[in-house]
């Protein structure tokens, strides 16, 4: 049963189409990431679902009810803002109580629910503090507690980790995932960070220019991107222009034709190959000779940049000893590891 349904929703600001005919179905308990570069419409889509912006066209449903014309304060979902938007003149506990008071909760019930929400994010002891007296990570927890205290049917998060430093971000990722499993409600979050989307989400919607390019599990997106744009956005990729016909795929940058497979599209295509699917030596079906132009050392793994005869650069992930800059080597990959995308 889907908790949030977005049907053919569009939103423009002046001449800019922020969200362009987007449809999306989110089931209860899902953790969906809206992934894209800034300006791709991901935050606008989230705001449309929250009711903070009104769509120009399309329908938004929550739990099956049409909420397209419903103001944000009457929608049974909550949003955590990128800036957290904690009320500066209220204490932590008052911030958390604010949403509950709007539902006319008071007295013992109110106190219990505030305690419950603060305990959920391990902030019970700091209920009397003002938000300004908290660290960034603590503020984020309070913002989370303030949303969850309302027991929303779904939680929307706008770049929830963007304001945190790296070490805190990883811990918070794990905590958010654990929280979602425990509460069983849908989380929808906006991010520009593909690692973040891949780590946390059960499904990722890759957005560009107001449209959803592809929506799939992180594994599927990684292994089977539907288009060149998704392949480029999701993970590290070597991408070359090619021209596919009935006989095979001509790839000028690689200086060779690749054999045809039945599922390849025809016409102009993008040939994509992951750096980790390329191995040193000529053991696999498709071989490319070249010279090592750079070695990027990253500890356990390194990335070797290989320049071939046409001047194209191939990124190769090497797990172990690396060749040296200037070495003439051959790399190869299996045809099945290669993607040919429209």
């Amino acid at each position, binding site marked *: 049963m889907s908790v949030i349904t977005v049907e053919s929703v569009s939103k423009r600001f002046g001449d800019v189409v922020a969200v362009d005919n987007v449809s999306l179905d989110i089931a209860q308990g899902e953790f969906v990431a809206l992934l894209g570069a800034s300006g791709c419409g991901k935050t606008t889509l989230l705001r449309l679902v*929250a*009711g*903070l912006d009104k769509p120009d066209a399309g329908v938004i449903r929550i739990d099956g009810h049409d909420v397209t014309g419903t*103001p*944000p*304060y*009457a929608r049974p979902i*909550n*949003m955590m*803002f990128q*800036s957290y*938007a*904690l*009320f*500066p*003149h209220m204490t932590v506990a008052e911030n958390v109580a*604010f*949403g509950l008071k*709007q*539902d006319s909760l008071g007295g013992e019930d109110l106190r219990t629910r505030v305690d419950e929400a603060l305990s959920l994010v391990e902030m019970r002891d700091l209920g009397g503090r*003002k938000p300004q007296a908290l660290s960034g990570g603590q503020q984020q927890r309070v913002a989370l507690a*303030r*949303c969850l205290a*309302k027991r929303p049917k779904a939680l929307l998060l706008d770049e929830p980790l963007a304001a945190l430093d790296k070490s805190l971000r990883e811990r918070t990722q794990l905590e958010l995932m654990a929280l979602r499993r425990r509460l069983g409600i849908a989380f929808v979050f906006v991010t520009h960070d593909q690692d973040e989307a891949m780590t946390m989400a059960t499904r990722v919607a890759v957005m560009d220019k107001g449209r959803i390019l592809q929506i799939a599990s992180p594994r599927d997106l990684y292994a089977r991107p539907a288009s060149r744009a998704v392949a480029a956005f999701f993970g590290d990729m070597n991408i070359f222009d090619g021209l596919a016909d009935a006989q095979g795929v001509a790839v000028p940058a690689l200086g060779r034709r690749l054999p045809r497979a039945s599922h390849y599209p025809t016409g102009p295509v993008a040939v994509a190959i992951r750096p980790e699917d390329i191995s040193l030596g000529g053991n696999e079906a498709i071989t490319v000779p070249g010279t090592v132009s750079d070695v990027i050392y990253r500890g356990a793994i390194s990335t070797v940049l290989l320049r071939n005869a046409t001047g194209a650069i191939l990124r190769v992930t090497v797990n172990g000893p690396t060749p040296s800059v200037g070495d003439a080597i051959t790399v190869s990959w299996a045809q099945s590891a290669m993607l040919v995308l429209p």
Partner: protein
Amino acid sequence: MKLSGRRKLVLAGPWLWLILFFLAPFALVVKISLAQAELGVPPYTPLLDAAGHIQASLANYALLFTDDLYLRAYWGSVRIAALATAFALLLGYPFAYAIARAPASRRSFYLLLAIAPFWTSFLVRIYAWMGLLRPGGLINTTLQSLGLIDAPLKLMNTEAAAVFGIVYAYLPFMVLPLYARLEKLDVSLLEAAADLGATPWRAFRAVTWPWSLPGVWAGCLLVFIPALGEFVIPELLGGPDTLMIGKVMWSEFFTNRDWPLSAAITVVLLVMLVAPIVAFQAAARRNEAA
């Protein structure tokens, strides 16, 4: 804190200004308030008599607190200034709010409109109001020609006209600090309030109003303080029945030539003005600490 030479120099400017144009003249006023009126030039007794003895008395102050006229005039000033401040706030808040919520590109233009009346002389504007409000003025003749009233309404020479005039003249002083504060309100706080279930009115009460309080304080003081000592508006629009301390001081000084008494009136007025400022600063400090 130890200050560098250059910093001292920069700070010396305002200090010098305050000492020359406020503190020194005020000391003079205090001195005169302790003297007695007499015929002569200057028209008051000197601080030191011929024998070199200090002659100072608090008689003028005693008079202020015993003669009913002065107490009523102070009370009239406080009442009129407070009323005018309240109305200026009621009128100025929506003004400032609308400007602060307008598209950023248009805000400075709207702000310009709000202070545009300052481009004409204050006196001209008050005289214009006299032309509008007097019995044969535009408002009365229009209402009469429309048949809404039979006889001209008494609009001029009332306390209401004085309050109205002060609101009109000082409204920009209310709008500007309110705007400066409201413009800095993070819109996402209001969105968060809405998201958490607050209707626009509740979001205003819970978020916008508390946020704007420093602006409210500043605007109220900027209107209340000059309104308290206002002389021109009550004189021109309020008529003889409107009793304000500024008018009393004027007549003591120019009509009765009692400089010491009008000096005493001024000193008491200043103390009355300083009290709310000190209260305001204490409140601001409390806000900061919290």
